[in-house]
């Protein structure tokens, strides 16, 4: 039998003495992931929690007889959740996530150099009365600050095992393993709550014990009171989701009971439920309890009485925990010297300085942007070149025909479409990991928050939005660093307004064709105006979203600025690797499928042989084929809708092609103008466009048309890959669909206004 079971009453409830699942949890910036990596090595998986886009990391730990699963829970400050991530932690620990058993042992990673705040979560974990081990991390930092933590003193004060570790040096990991194997439930902390609150809590607990029954391993359900016999038994007034595998400690007398038979709610469980109701825990599993008439009445009267006494249970609970924490800290930390200025504070004097800080920030961000924008290019073209060689080698063995074309232009081009994003995603996540692990990301947010906060974004929106100027895909993925859901979604929603590098060839072509009369400087200003319009559109949209959402739900900006650390190369590389891999496997597959589908739209139906024979030149045949294809027919079909904007069917076809990637607009247009390889021969395409005439002899490509097309390209959501990634990151089609409707609606109306205005002012 495992040592973990020696003192564990769960064994009596039929746990079987097997240690199967360990949960690792702790505050953000506590170094939890480093410990997770040290414990599990490379045996890791990244999945996600169903219905919510939070990464679920699991790994395996060799523990004596066999291996056990280790779950790396999202960083959390409290079990009274303030975000979906924190709600997951609370739910998993209480066995409230369906399909997931609650962990057998909790490992709390705490930062020794920030002991008090980290112990707050520990005080809540102790309340759960589950086997708990505290991993005291960053003991080296605490020692350097002349505030070493006495692990034994801390263990005595907490009543559970405390293992000093230094995650990045992997010291103490073996001890931690042994401690996990021998983990036992710790006693709940005794912190003095105001007596009137305790009295109301006991009253409420007694009521709950009467109202509810408790089925070990299955869950709560209503206990029909004798008075409610007339009620339909099929609709109990109170139903709780089954708490699969949820362990509470049965009272000593009930150990012999069958696990399935309902018993009265035990004292401890009733007490903890009463406490959570009193302090206003917003956890969804408590909602049915609050709705129950008896409980609700008792709760309301208790709260009213306490209010009259000037007591707020929520505040009293938090204050009592911190009083307890102060005692625990006093028994574990002997302050050797008075608070010295730490290295971190000295660094901050420069890094958040109003002049130096901004200068360094600008330099770092410029470096980040250049890396994603330029450094990724040679890598991407190297990958593309390699892929082209493979494609050639493979397709050379296959005779010409649909299969040959599918392989060359569909499959390999689709793989290429995914691979172009990979260097950008990898580089951005490498740099993000560096910024985050060093502690600088919080400073960047601190410096930029004033500007972004005005329009309802967050300081942390800056890096993702900046990355979007290279490509929206890595930018939207980078929005994961924004903990707050509302601001994260707003950032993702407005991200595609940033002019990405794929729009640049389109802008360049349109400027060259329709503003050829302007000088280079004036053409540069047109380009700048296009980038600025995107930024303005993003800011205004974010502002509208903020106005439209409930201001009461507006999220506060309460951001910890962690101490600076030297990032660990292995951690940084590992983070970049897992994010890139998850992009390829989850978004990449869909992007690939859609690019093959788009290829088919341009390929089928095939031009009849007789019609093809009329066009001996390959470029002309290609043009005829595209006009004959589904995409070409679609271009003709939507021409009436595009005419008010000044576009013809060729532009319509180009817009369909642009859904693969915006720069495809240029090559598609090239095909329709029978210009071979338009990507390389932009000048000949430009000349063909300038020569093009409408039936009445006026030029097709006027300033009005170009401006209206530019407005369209700045504002429209027409990138399938972006939509796929937004769906992945927001957990459904709702947000991408809203983006398509809103952005394309806006793009259409403003392009229309723009075309009308130019035609009206200067004539067609």
């Amino acid at each position, binding site marked *: 039998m495992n040592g973990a079971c020696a003192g564990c009453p769960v064994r009596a409830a039929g746990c079987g003495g097997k240690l199967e699942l360990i949960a690792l949890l702790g505050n953000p910036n506590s170094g939890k992931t480093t410990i997770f990596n040290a414990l599990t090595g490379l045996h890791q998986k990244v999945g996600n929690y169903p219905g919510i886009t939070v990464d679920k990391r699991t790994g395996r730990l060799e523990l004596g007889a066999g291996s056990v699963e280790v779950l790396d829970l999202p960083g959390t400050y*409290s079990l009274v959740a303030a975000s979906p991530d924190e709600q997951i932690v609370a739910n998993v620990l209480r066995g409230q996530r369906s399909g997931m058993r609650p962990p057998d042992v909790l490992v709390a990673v705490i930062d020794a150099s920030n002991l008090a705040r980290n112990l707050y979560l520990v005080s809540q974990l102790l309340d759960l009365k589950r086997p708990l081990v505290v991993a005291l991390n960053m003991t080296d930092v605490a020692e350097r600050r002349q505030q070493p933590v006495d692990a034994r003193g801390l263990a005595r004060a907490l009543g559970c095992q405390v293992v000093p570790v230094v995650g990045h040096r992997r010291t103490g990991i073996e001890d931690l393993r042994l401690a996990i194997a021998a983990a036992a439930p710790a006693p709940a902390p005794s912190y003095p709550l105001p007596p009137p609150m305790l009295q109301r809590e006991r009253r409420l607990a007694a009521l709950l014990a009467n109202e509810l029954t408790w089925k070990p391993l299955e869950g709560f359900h209503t206990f029909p009171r004798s008075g409610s016999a007339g009620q339909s038994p099929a609709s109990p007034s109170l139903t709780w989701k089954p708490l699969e595998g949820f362990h509470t400690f049965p009272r000593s007398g009930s150990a012999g009971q069958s696990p399935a038979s309902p018993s009265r709610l035990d004292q401890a469980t009733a007490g903890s439920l009463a406490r959570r109701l009193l302090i206003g825990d917003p956890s969804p599993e408590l909602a049915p309890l609050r709705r129950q008439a008896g409980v609700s009445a008792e709760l309301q009267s208790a709260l009213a009485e306490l209010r009259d006494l000037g007591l707020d249970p929520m505040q009293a609970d938090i204050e009592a925990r911190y009083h307890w924490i102060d005692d625990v800290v006093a028994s574990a930390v002997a302050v050797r010297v008075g608070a010295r200025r730490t290295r971190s504070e000295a660094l901050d004097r420069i890094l958040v300085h109003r002049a130096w800080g901004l200068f360094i920030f600008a330099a770092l961000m410029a470096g980040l942007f250049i890396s994603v924008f330029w450094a990724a290019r040679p890598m991407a073209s190297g990958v593309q070149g390699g892929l082209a060689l493979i494609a050639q080698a493979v397709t050379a063995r296959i005779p010409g025909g649909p299969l040959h074309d599918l392989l060359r232009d569909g499959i390999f081009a689709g793989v290429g479409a995914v691979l172009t994003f990979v260097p950008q995603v990898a580089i951005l996540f490498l740099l993000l990991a560096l910024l985050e692990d060093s502690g600088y990301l919080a400073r960047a947010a601190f410096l930029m928050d004033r500007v972004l906060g005005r329009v309802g974004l967050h300081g942390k929106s800056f890096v993702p939005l900046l990355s979007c100027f290279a490509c929206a895909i890595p930018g939207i993925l980078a929005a994961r660093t924004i903990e707050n859901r509302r601001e994260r979604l707003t950032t993702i929603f407005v991200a595609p307004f940033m002019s990405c590098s794929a729009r640049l060839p389109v802008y360049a072509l349109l400027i060259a064709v329709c503003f050829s009369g302007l000088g280079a400087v004036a053409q540069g200003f047109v380009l700048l105006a296009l980038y600025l319009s995107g930024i303005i559109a993003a800011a205004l949209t974010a502002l509208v979203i903020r106005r439209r959402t409930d201001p009461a739900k507006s999220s506060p900006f309460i951001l910890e600025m962690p101490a600076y650390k030297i990032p660990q190369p292995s951690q940084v590389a590992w983070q970049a690797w897992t994010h890139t891999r998850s992009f390829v496997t989850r978004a990449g597959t869909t992007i690939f499928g859609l690019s093959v589908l788009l290829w088919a739209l341009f390929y089928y139906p095939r031009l009849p042989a007789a019609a093809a024979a009329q066009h001996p030149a390959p470029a002309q045949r290609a043009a005829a084929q595209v006009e004959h294809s589904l995409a070409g027919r679609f271009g003709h079909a939507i021409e009436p809708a595009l005419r008010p904007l000044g576009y013809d069917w060729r532009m319509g076809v180009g817009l369909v092609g642009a859904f693969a990637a915006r720069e495809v607009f240029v090559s598609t247009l090239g095909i329709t103008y029978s210009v071979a390889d338009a990507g390389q021969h932009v000048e000949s395409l430009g000349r063909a466009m300038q020569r093009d005439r409408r039936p009445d002899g006026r030029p097709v490509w006027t300033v009005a048309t170009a401006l209206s097309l530019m407005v369209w390209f700045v504002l429209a959501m027409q990138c399938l890959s972006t939509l796929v990634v937004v769906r992945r990151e927001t957990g459904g089609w709702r947000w991408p669909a809203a983006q398509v409707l809103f952005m394309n609606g806006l793009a259409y109306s403003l392009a229309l206004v723009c075309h009308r205005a130019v035609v009206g002012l200067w004539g067609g």
Partner: protein
Amino acid sequence: MPRSPMGKNLTTLAFLAEAQPARVEAVQGETETRRRLLEMGICPGVTVELVHRAPLGDPCAFRVRGYLLSLRREQARLVTVSTEKAAA
């Protein structure tokens, strides 16, 4: 500036001068914000000090319980503090 009975100056974190230690007296605001401020260690009785102001004056970073926490003016306003001397 109002004076509390003990002869201390009462203000909020939004109006605290740099390097002027202050004692938290009360935390206001709607429940969720107040809860998170308290949970992050800003409880009545604790000492808070303004350490950095962002270049545009907002947000501000405070030292509380040995770590650095940044708050927007909007949240800093919710924390009533008392200082020993007259704040600048």
